[in-house]
Every structure is written in structure tokens, then in C-alpha cells.
């Protein structure tokens, strides 16, 4: 992927992440205020496709966004050659994607 696409992708995903974080915090606040138990929360989100879609989008944006930013930090850090940094960050993106989506799936449809 070109450097140009990476810069653009980081910006685009940042624009997705900002409203996602706000919504996420709002949801937590509501759950707290209503004094919901874990069981009640799970009851609300289970089989809720809208909820699953929202958090899946959140996970995908984070998995793209964070490794691109951390990549330039690792390059500066200088401990790894550039190619190695790219490989490690690609692996990190995949890890975030898999663990994140797995968590969303497990909450909405039960453990896989």
C-alpha cells in the first residue's frame, strides 16, 4: 500500500473513530445511570444486528488507524528496520481485527 493511501486511511478512520468513541462513552454512561447488570446489558445487545454493525465498524477503524500511527513512531524509535516495522504493524492490525471482531461476535451471538 502506498504511503499516500496510508496517510489518507489514517485520517478517514480518525473521522470514523471520533463519533464512535462518543457513542461508546454515551452507551456506557446510559448503562451506568440505569444501573444495568451485565446480564441485562447482554440481554439488550444479543442478536442486535445494529449494535453488532456499529461495534464491528469501530473495531475495523481502530485496527486500521492505530497501526498506521504506531508505525511512524516505531520507525523513529529505530530499533527495527523499516520492512520489519511494516510486517509487525500488519500483524498487529490483523490481531486487532481478529480479537475485536471475535469479541463483538461473542457478545452478540454467543461464544463461537
Amino acid at each position, binding site marked *: 500500500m*502506498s*504511503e*499516500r493511501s496510508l*496517510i*489518507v486511511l489514517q*485520517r*478517514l478512520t480518525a473521522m470514523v473513530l471520533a463519533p464512535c468513541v462518543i457513542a461508546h462513552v454515551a452507551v456506557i454512561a446510559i448503562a451506568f445511570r440505569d444501573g444495568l447488570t451485565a446480564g441485562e446489558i447482554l440481554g439488550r445487545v444479543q442478536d442486535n444486528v445494529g449494535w453488532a454493525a456499529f461495534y464491528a465498524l469501530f473495531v475495523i477503524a481502530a485496527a486500521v488507524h492505530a497501526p498506521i500511527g504506531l508505525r*511512524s513512531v516505531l520507525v*523513529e524509535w*529505530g530499533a527495527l528496520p523499516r520492512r520489519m516495522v511494516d510486517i509487525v504493524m500488519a500483524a498487529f492490525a490483523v490481531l486487532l481485527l481478529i480479537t475485536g471482531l471475535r469479541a463483538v461476535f461473542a457478545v452478540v451471538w454467543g461464544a463461537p
Partner: protein
Amino acid sequence: MTDTIPVRVWRGGDAGAFQTFDVALRDNQTVLDIVTDIQRRQDPTLSYRFACRVGVCGSCAMTVNGVPRWTCRTHVAKVAAEGVLTLEPLRNLPRLKDLAVDMTPFFDKWQKAGGTFEGRKTRDDAVDPVKPGSRARKAADAAIECINCAVCYAACDVVDWDPDYLGPAALNRVWTLVNDRRHARRSDTLDKAAQSGGCGSCHSQGACMRHCPVGLSPTESIAGLKRALLFSLLGGRL
């Protein structure tokens, strides 16, 4: 008897040491005046660079008490509050001798960043007018007065950490070009700005902006480049 100030001056290249000179204080004395005084009266072998002495040529930058500055427009009274001056060559550039650095990497990166204008018209065409009040012209205006002093380059930690980083001045120049409507290769120029070591490496933390002696903000210019890259997506370029 006139008052004097102890001035610690870096002597030598990478391997070297500080040498202390006592220099007579005068009214309205600049740091460059001090260096010149040392060279004229105490040690003619002291190497440093200057030309215009009035803040135009960009050749006199040094590290003054740990901070990169243009020495011809820096008053001693302003920077030597503790009564001592420590003068070193600019950071992030190879040291040649004493206070002179090799500026080659700085200007090589200027080339690599691709800030070269390419016209669309020939000498036979009418002049393409640029409206002074247009947004693009105003953006270019805000960044155009760079004197190539490399103060920002010395101030930037990313330059220190990543030897491939093009640095604030070169990217600031590219931003002025991207805003020149007469420039024929805007998309190629943006490609170069985004190259490995380009605008994606900047952390927007602003040391360049803080130290630029003519008050430019390469930070803003680089943010502008990132924004332009995002908008170029609307034109179908990713």
C-alpha cells in the same frame, strides 16, 4: 573597564570541546557580533557562517544556550539572562568545524521533497493571473517567506530520530507549491509529499513553528498537506 561575558564556543567537529572566551559587552549586541568579535580580536581560526547580518540570507543559525536561533537578529541581552553564552553548531546536521555545519543533507531533502515548480504555459502564452485574495494564494503567502536557515530542521525531534524524514522546511516549501495554481504537477507533488519520510512522519508537535525566526508555521503547512491528500481522494486519488 567594560563588562565582559564568558562565551563557551564549540571548537572542532564531532570530536571537539568547548573553549571559553571573555568578550566585551556592548549595547544592542547580537550573538553574531559576539562571534565576530572573537574571530577578529581573539582567534582568527574560528569558523562560522554569515552573510547579510540583517535576517535575510538564513546562513547564521547556531545553537545558542541550547536553542536554535538566527544569531544576527538575536540580542545577547535577550538570551544571556544567566550571564553566560554557550554557542554550538546547529543540531541534526553534520558538524564541519566549530560553528559551521554541512547544510548538504538539508538542501538534498529540499530536492527530494519535490518542491520544484513546473509551468503549464510557454513564454508565448499570456500570464496566468493569481488572485491575491484567493484562498490558495493566502495559504501560500503564509508559508512563503522561508529564508532556508534550517532552524526548524534543528528544532525537530523527528528529524533527529528518523534520518529519512524530509523535515519541516522542505515540506513547508512543498505546501506553497501545492497552493500555486500555475503549478502543472500538483498530484505528483502531493505524491512526493506523502513519500516514506514525508508529511506522514510529522507529529504536529510544533517545535518548528515555535522556533522559526520569521514566524512561519511548517506544522500548519504539513497539516495542510495531509488535508490536501485527504481531499485528493475526492478527485479519485488514493
